[in-house]
C-alpha cells in the first residue's frame, strides 16, 4: 500500500539528496493526479498524472509556464477540487478516501489559504476577517477576535483592527490574508500567486512573513508562483510543464536553478 514516492525529476535528485534544509516527515504527497475540465471538444486535460511531494517545515514553490496546471494541482492538493484519478495524502490522511464533508472539515482544521486577489470580505473589519477560520472551527467570538488581534499585530497591523479591507493598500490586505491563513495554526498553508498583485518590495515583505510561518514545527507552506523574484525563499521548487511535475530542485541544484531563472 505505502510504496514510497519515486522522485519524478529529470534533472533528477541524487540518490541521497543533498539538501540544506533536511526534509522532515512527509506533509503532502500526491500521485498520478489526473484532472480534466469540460467535455467533448472543449475537454482540456489540465493534469496528466502529476506526482508531487512536500515535507513538513518546508516552503515549497510550484512554478511553471502559464496554463501548465499549477493552480489546478494546488486546488487538488488543498481538497477544494476533486481529481479524476490519483491519490492525495496530507499529513498521513488519505484525502481521496474521505467524504465531501470530511474533506471540508479537514480543510477547516488543517489548511490556511492565501489568494492572489486576497479575497477579504469587504464589509467586515480586519479583525472579523481574520477571525473567520477560528469561527468556522467553533471558537467563540471573543476568543477568536483576541487571537485575530494578536495575529494582526504580528503582521504589523496593530491598531487597525476595526478598519475595513478597502482602507488598506494591496500589501496590507495581503498581510491581513496571511494573518487569516495562520490564525488557526494550520499545518498546511496554500498560496496561489501571493505576490503577483504586489510590487517587488511589498512582495519581499510578504515572503518574509510566509517563510517565517513555514518554520513553525510540522508546517508546510505551498506557493504557486511565476514570480522568479521570490524563488530565493524556497526550500524546494517543483517545476511543472504540461500537466506534470517534471523537475524538483533542492539544495545546490536549487541555487543553480534560481540563478539560471533569474538570468533569463
Amino acid at each position, binding site marked *: 500500500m505505502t510504496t514510497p514516492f519515486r522522485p519524478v525529476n529529470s534533472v533528477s535528485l541524487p540518490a541521497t539528496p543533498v539538501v540544506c534544509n533536511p526534509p522532515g516527515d512527509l506533509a503532502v504527497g500526491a500521485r498520478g493526479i489526473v484532472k480534466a475540465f469540460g467535455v467533448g471538444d472543449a475537454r482540456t486535460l489540465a493534469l496528466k498524472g502529476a506526482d508531487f511531494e512536500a515535507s513538513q517545515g518546508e516552503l515549497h514553490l510550484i512554478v511553471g509556464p502559464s496554463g501548465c496546471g499549477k*493552480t489546478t494541482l*494546488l*486546488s487538488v492538493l*488543498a481538497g*477544494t*477540487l476533486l481529481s479524476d484519478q490519483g491519490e492525495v495524502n496530507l499529513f498521513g490522511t488519505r484525502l481521496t478516501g474521505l467524504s465531501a*464533508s470530511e474533506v*471540508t*472539515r479537514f*480543510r*477547516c*482544521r488543517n*489548511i490556511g*489559504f492565501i*489568494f*492572489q*486577489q486576497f*479575497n477579504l*470580505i*469587504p*464589509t*467586515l473589519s480586519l479583525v*472579523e476577517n481574520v477571525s*473567520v*477560520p477560528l*469561527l*468556522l*472551527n467553533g471558537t467563540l*467570538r471573543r476568543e477568536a477576535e483576541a487571537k485575530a488581534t494578536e495575529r494582526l499585530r504580528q503582521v504589523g497591523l496593530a491598531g487597525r483592527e476595526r478598519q475595513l479591507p478597502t482602507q488598506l493598500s494591496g500589501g496590507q490586505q495581503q498581510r491581513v490574508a496571511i494573518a487569516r491563513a495562520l490564525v488557526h495554526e494550520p499545518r498546511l498553508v496554500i498560496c*496561489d500567486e501571493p505576490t503577483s498583485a504586489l510590487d517587488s518590495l511589498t512582495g519581499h515583505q510578504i515572503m518574509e512573513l510566509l517563510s517565517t510561518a513555514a518554520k513553525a514545527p510540522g508546517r508546510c507552506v505551498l506557493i504557486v508562483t511565476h514570480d522568479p523574484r521570490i524563488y530565493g525563499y524556497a526550500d524546494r521548487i517543483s517545476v511543472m510543464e504540461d500537466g506534470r511535475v517534471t523537475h524538483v530542485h533542492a539544495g545546490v541544484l536549487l541555487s543553480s536553478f534560481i540563478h539560471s531563472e533569474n538570468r533569463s
Partner: protein
Amino acid sequence: MFLLALKMLLGDRAKYWMLVGGLAFSSLLMTQQYSVFQGLLAWTTSHMRNMRASIWIVESRVDQVNETKAMRDTDVNRVRSVEGVDFAVPLFQGVLKARTADGADKMIQMIGLHSGTLYGRPPHMIEGDISQLRLPNSVVIDTLAAEVTRLGSGVGRPLKVGDVFEINDREARVVGICKTERHFFGYPYVFSSYDQALQYAPRQRKMLSMILAEPKPGLDTAVVAQRIMAETGLRAFTVPQLEASTLRWVWTNTGIPISFLTTIVLGFVVGVAVCGQTFYSFVLENLRNLGALKAMGASNSLLAGMLLFQAMIVGLIGFGIGIGLTALFGLTIAQSGQPPFKANAVFVFQSMAAVLVICALAALFGIRRVAKLEPAIVFRG
C-alpha cells in the same frame, strides 16, 4: 459566523434597503388590504351586532342579513306558536329618504323595533332614553346620522336630543342618540318603533322585513331555529349561521373578495420577485467571498444557514416596518372609520409567515447557487 453573515448583508446598503423596502411594501400591501377587506366583511354583518337578536327569521328565499323580502304580519304569530320560542317580534328594516333642516335628502337605514319589548335595540345609548321611542314621531339616531354632513345638515352642528327632521314628510323627533357599528351600505341608522316605521315607509301590501326571536331559556338556539323553519317554512338563522350565510353570499355574489385577494396575492408575488431578485444578486456579487469561505472550510449547510439567516432577518425587519405602516394607517383612519379596517392577530402571524416564506424562497435560489459553487473558483482570476 451568523453575526458576520448579517454584517455582510448590512454592509451592502443598497441591497439591504432594497430588500427591507420590498418586504415592507409587500407586508404593507398584504396586511393593509386584508384588514380593509376584513373591515368591509365586518360591515356586511353589522346589523347583527347592532340589533343582537338570537334568532333571525326571514322569508324563505333570503340568504343574508342585508336583504329583505317582505312577509305577512301573521307570520309573527306563526313563529310565536312554535314550541321552544320564548317570544318573537316583528322588525322593519329598509332604506328611506330623510329630509334635513335645509331641505337636503339623505338616505337612512330605518329600523323599526317592536314597541312592547324594543327587542333589537342598539347596544350603546349615548344620550336620551330608548323607551321614548314609544311616543309618536320619535326616533333614536346613531352618531353618524347626527353628523353635520348627514342629518345635521342645515343645523350647523350635530343633531341633539330634541331636534327634528323629516322622513317622508313626517316629523321625526330625536329622543336619543346611540352608537352603532357602521353598516356596509354606509347609511346611518335611525331607529323607531315598528308601527312608527310603517308610517314613515311608503305603504306596501306586506311590510314585515324580519322576525326576531328568542328561544326559551335553556334551549339550544340552533334547535329552536331548525324547528321554526320546519314548522313555518320561513328561514331561521342563529347568529353564526346568518353570519356565515351573509359572508358566503358576499363571496359568491360580489367581486369584493376576489379583488382584495388579487391585491394580497400580488403583494406576495411582488415580495417574492423583488426580494428573490435582490437577494440572488447579493449572493452572486458575493460569490467570491462565499467561495473563499467554502474553501476555508465552511460547509454547505453552514452557508445555507447563513443565507437563510440573512434573509429571515431582513424579512423580520421588513415585516416590522410594513406592519408598522399598516398599524399607522389603521390608527389614522380609526377616527373617520373609513375605509373599514379590522386588524386580526391571526392574520398578522399569517402574513409574517408569508413574508418569511418569501425570504426562504429568496434564500433558496442563493443556497442552490452556493451549493453548486466549486470552492476552487477562488483560485481563478
